[in-house]
């Protein structure tokens, strides 16, 4: 167990029948790092992330999350992580406040902490006027920001974000990344998948998944240097072109 690392995976694999979605991936994520997890659609990003969150059992290989074993301590891991899925997954028929209270509550926040967190969160998001409204009535960008805030309400060591800014306008995306930076500054490790290469530039390090394998892993600067290209966009093209899996 290495206290410097939030995530360590070794030969982690997930197969569905004869199809290997995630093929022996090994990588480490440092504590407090913003780690970008890139790859084309169907490269295996979501499957890998679901294994790390304890939503899906690996076929083989090992991993530790926040120092806990992915097989034995699934429930302990769950106290240490936050997760925001691709699909919006707060309760649309509850109000903003009720969602915050509910998730804070089941993460075991005390009544006092709940009150404090709720007010702080609504304040940071500028949702004062909306706090009593059903989440269903919020615009997508606000929903996403709320979902992120709820995912870190219990101050986890790591938060997993699966395409958090999909379908969101550029301004909101910028605000969303402000939230991410803020969380990272508080010491939360960020593990994020994205299709926006400008967002990849914001990450400390990124990995590129191609056909279930990790094809490259380094800081955006070094990757650009390595492939002798101008932008992360070009790095992505360069690597993803080698993919054999059809879309």
């Amino acid at each position, binding site marked *: 167990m290495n206290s410097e690392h939030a995530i360590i995976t070794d030969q982690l694999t997930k197969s569905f029948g004869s199809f290997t979605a995630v093929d022996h991936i090994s990588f480490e994520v440092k504590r407090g790092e913003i780690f970008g997890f890139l790859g084309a659609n169907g490269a295996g990003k979501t499957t890998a992330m679901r294994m790390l969150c*304890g939503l899906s059992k690996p076929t083989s290989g090992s991993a530790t999350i926040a120092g806990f074993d992915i097989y034995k301590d*699934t429930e302990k891991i769950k106290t240490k992580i936050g997760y925001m899925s691709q699909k919006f*997954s707060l309760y649309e*028929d509850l109000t903003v406040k009720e969602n915050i209270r*509910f998730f804070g509550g089941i993460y075991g926040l005390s009544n006092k902490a709940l009150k404090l967190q709720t007010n702080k969160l609504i304040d940071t998001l500028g949702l004062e006027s909306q706090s009593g409204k059903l989440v269903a009535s919020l615009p997508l960008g606000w929903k996403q920001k709320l979902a992120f805030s709820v995912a870190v309400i219990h101050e986890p060591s790591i938060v997993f974000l699966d395409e958090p800014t999909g379908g969101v306008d550029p301004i909101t995306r910028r605000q969303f990344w402000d939230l991410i930076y803020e969380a990272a500054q508080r010491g939360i490790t960020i593990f994020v998948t994205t299709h926006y290469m400008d967002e990849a530039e914001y990450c400390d390090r990124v990995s590129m998944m191609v056909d279930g394998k990790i094809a490259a892993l380094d800081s955006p600067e070094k990757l650009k240097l390595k492939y002798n290209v101008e932008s992360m966009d070009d790095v992505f093209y360069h690597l993803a072109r080698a993919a054999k899996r059809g879309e």
Partner: protein
Amino acid sequence: MRTLKFLLVKEFKQIFRNKSLLPMIFMMPIIQLLVLPLAADFEIKNINISIVDHDRSEYSNDLINAVTSSGYFQLVSFGDSYQAAMNEIELDASDLILEIPSHFEQNLIKDGAQQVFIAVNAINGTKAGLGASYLNSIIQNFNQNIMVDAIASGNAAPLKNIEVVSLNWFNPNMNYKIFMVPAILVLLVTMVGAYMCSLNIVKEKEVGTIEQINVTPIKKHLYILGKMIPFLVIGIFIFTIGFFVVARLVYQIVPLGNLFLLYGYLFLFLVALLGFGLLISTYSQTQQQAMSIAFFFMMVFILMSGLFTPIESMPEWAKYIAYSNPVTYFIEVMRMVVLKGSMLKNITNHIYVMIGFAIFFNTWAVMNYRKTS
């Protein structure tokens, strides 16, 4: 415990905000209890009858009067052509033909015996069977009257006859509503268990919120309890409205047995049925799937529960199904406790069986519910 509180607050809020569920919960018991018992009446009235009278005598007239004034039959055609009557049956306008032969009166007086002919349209088996037996008993009655007349006028020797008189215990007037209402209440509660609970959980799978729950350290059994308790409350609520409002005010059904016993059994039944609903939800990914599975089992539960047809008259193999059906036991208990005033010692067996069902369904469901796929 605190987690459970948060779960329950959330569930109840969601249920009370659900615009389609709420009217169901309040209106379903009232509407179903008002409509179903009236329709599910085994007494058949308005049987369409065609009478072919070849005799046109005083006796045949008397017989026809006896039939048409009984209240069960409606005369659709009267004539002397059997063929015409048969046409009525073929057009489905008529259910029964009563054919009175020519020289009916004459032969009856001369020989002391005569035959009439009944033809039954058996497409609707229940109607046909009951119609024929009503007609038979009317004719028999008519027969008795003729005999009494004959004996009185000294034309015939008194016959020794055994008359069977039956006494209907616990429901002296053979009122079908008293028999059906408690059982229909059971159906209402069954729907809550089998549908509402499983659909609720599967809905969370469909919209994806269950993922968000599954990444939290929430305990599996707490989450399940959080889902079951609200529907347990709703089930008891629906039962209470149905029992104390509709059954008592509309049908004047006052339970003879102990209410605690009834509610205790209702509780056991709901736990078993909610376990079953939960089990369906663990095997379904979409509400459509859950609905189809639940619907299939509802059909079996309803038709093989002794609700409409006595279990004793089912074939052997079907009895096994009926006795593997939790609904069967609750209907029996309802009828026993409400109509007969049965006590705890009369239904201990039913209690053990229901506890068995509850343990069986819930264990299976909890084992099959996975936070990790």
